């Protein structure tokens, strides 16, 4: 089988020319913009560009809100993943489809939807505002909600996959040793799927950090409270391109770090 395939491909690379050219074009297309970013970066003034109060505020807001969004996603998403992977409830397929909608939904639409749900006149926001005077839109809370909305599905899908792949007989073994379902989940299931949870959390955090569309729609663009890194980049591009490039470099570094953390799961998998 392997020999027959080899006969159809060229020499040492093992890639037919018909595939090699488009593949090379794809690599150039994907990598060239990143190289441009590095080439055009204002390396000499990088330090001062990144130390302005606006940038530091945006960076802190991004990190804090993405971390909070990840935390919420873990607390709510892991149990949801368990329900999707293990429970016998009816309509599980529909539930999974609904949960993954934010993955494919344009983030701006997500922002509009969040506004309609949690806005001051929203289906949930209006009674909440009437009762307590609390309003989410255009606050840091809204930033966190927007990021959680778009990022949680990444965590849920990752953890659900890990739960499905885990050997359930370990849970049987735990049961015969006297462990109830809660203890089995805590001491056996969760440790067994920990790599999946960690990968999901990293992915979720990276997605939350990069959030733009839902945030600007639902949370607005107020310095210090809702202007995250991505919004700052967009704004700076109009007024101070060098600052935009510097901020972009920071986000690129974070992305590469994320890939590094996921390395074992995705990059080396054959």
């Amino acid at each position, binding site marked *: 089988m392997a020999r027959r395939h080899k006969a159809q491909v060229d020499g040492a690379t093992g890639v037919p020319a018909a595939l090699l050219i488009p593949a090379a074009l794809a690599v150039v297309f994907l990598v060239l913009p990143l190289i441009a970013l590095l080439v055009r970066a204002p390396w000499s003034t990088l330090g001062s560009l990144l130390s302005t109060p606006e940038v530091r505020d945006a960076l802190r807001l991004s990190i804090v809100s993405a971390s909070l969004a990840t935390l919420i996603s873990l607390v709510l998403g892991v149990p949801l993943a368990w329900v999707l992977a293990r429970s016998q409830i009816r309509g599980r397929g529909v539930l999974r489809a609904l949960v993954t909608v934010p993955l494919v939904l344009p983030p701006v639409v997500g922002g509009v939807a969040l506004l309609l749900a949690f806005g001051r006149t929203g289906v949930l926001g209006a009674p909440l505002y009437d009762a307590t005077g609390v309003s989410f839109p255009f606050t840091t809370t809204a930033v966190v909600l927007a990021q959680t909305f778009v990022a949680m599905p990444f965590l849920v899908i990752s953890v659900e996959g890990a739960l499905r792949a885990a050997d359930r007989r370990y849970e049987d073994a735990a049961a*015969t040793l006297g462990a109830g379902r809660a203890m089995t989940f805590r001491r056996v299931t969760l440790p067994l799927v920990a790599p999946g949870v960690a990968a999901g959390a990293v992915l979720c955090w990276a997605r939350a950090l990069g959030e733009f569309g839902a945030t600007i729609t639902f949370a607005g663009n107020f310095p210090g409270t809702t202007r995250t890194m991505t919004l700052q980049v967009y704004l700076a591009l109009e007024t101070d391109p060098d600052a935009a490039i510097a901020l972009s470099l920071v986000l690129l570094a974070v992305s590469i770090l994320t890939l590094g953390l996921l390395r074992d799961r995705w990059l080396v998998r054959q």
Partner: protein
Amino acid sequence: MSLSAHIVIQRGALPVDVTFEVQPGEVLAVLGPNGAGKSTVLRVLAGLARPHFGQVRLDGTTLDDPAAGIRLPPHRRPIGMVFQDHLLFPHLSTVDNVAFGLRARGASRESARAVAAGWVARMNLSDHSSSKPRSLSGGQAQRIALARALAGDPRLLLLDEPLSALDARTKLDVRADLRHHLADYAGATVLVTHDPVDAMALADQLVVVERGRVVQVGTPVDVSRRPRTDYVARLVGLSLLAGMAQGRSVVLDSGATVQVAEASSGPVFVAIRPAAVGLYRSRPDGSPRNVWPATVAGVTPYGETLRVDLDGQVPLTADVTPEAAAELDLVLGAGVWASVKASEVAAYPA
């Protein structure tokens, strides 16, 4: 104070319906071919599978009774179970694996660890207390799995093919070791295996299950001397023949007659050991009263001898030395004479 079980459950297309009892301190082996429903029975006893019908009672407590709506969940049963491939928790150290059941049943971290350390020491694995299961050999993992099952002081111990994951060399040691630990254990033990040697070596009572049914019950000696199905006979290396006894003659279903040691009457089984069968190129004269023509249907190495399957009116298995096989020219389809002394033939009521 014992286990009594009547278990009815569907296993895929196979209806399983078995009944047995085990006394405290007794080891019962459920022996049968793969796919006979043995492991399903064990899973019911553990509470991991629901029987459709029947009743499981342990020391007067009902664990399962579907008709009465009773089903004790697995974690409330006073059991310990050793799984086929051990299933030691990969993220916990050896000692924490053993301590797991104690912690689950309410012991404090310190006391659970102390008891677990004692069990690890008893298994001569104290050097491996803090290592993860993946660094243990198959035999060591088996011992830790046994320690984990026994540490919670269960009243019922369940062993699912406990030796099948081990290589032949390790198996001998671990089997002897397991026998020793089972002798010390005061509760009832149910062992599931497809290996007759494990069953014979470890069990006080055998229940032979084929296609979801119990086909024979008895002590290992009883079952190995007097098999009641071809499967059991093959397992213990006997040829099994069915027929009608009239005094010291048994007329087989094929019409052939077998002379036996003791007189009886009515339907009987006749069991013949392969070593008791003599093979000749021409019809032998003299004392043997059972002489039948046969053709060679197969020759396979068996230890230091060759095991010869014979077709004919009396299907038999014979053990011969390689020298004798060469002399007799035992090729497939060769015609030979088989003889057995009447004193070597056991007949018992069917």
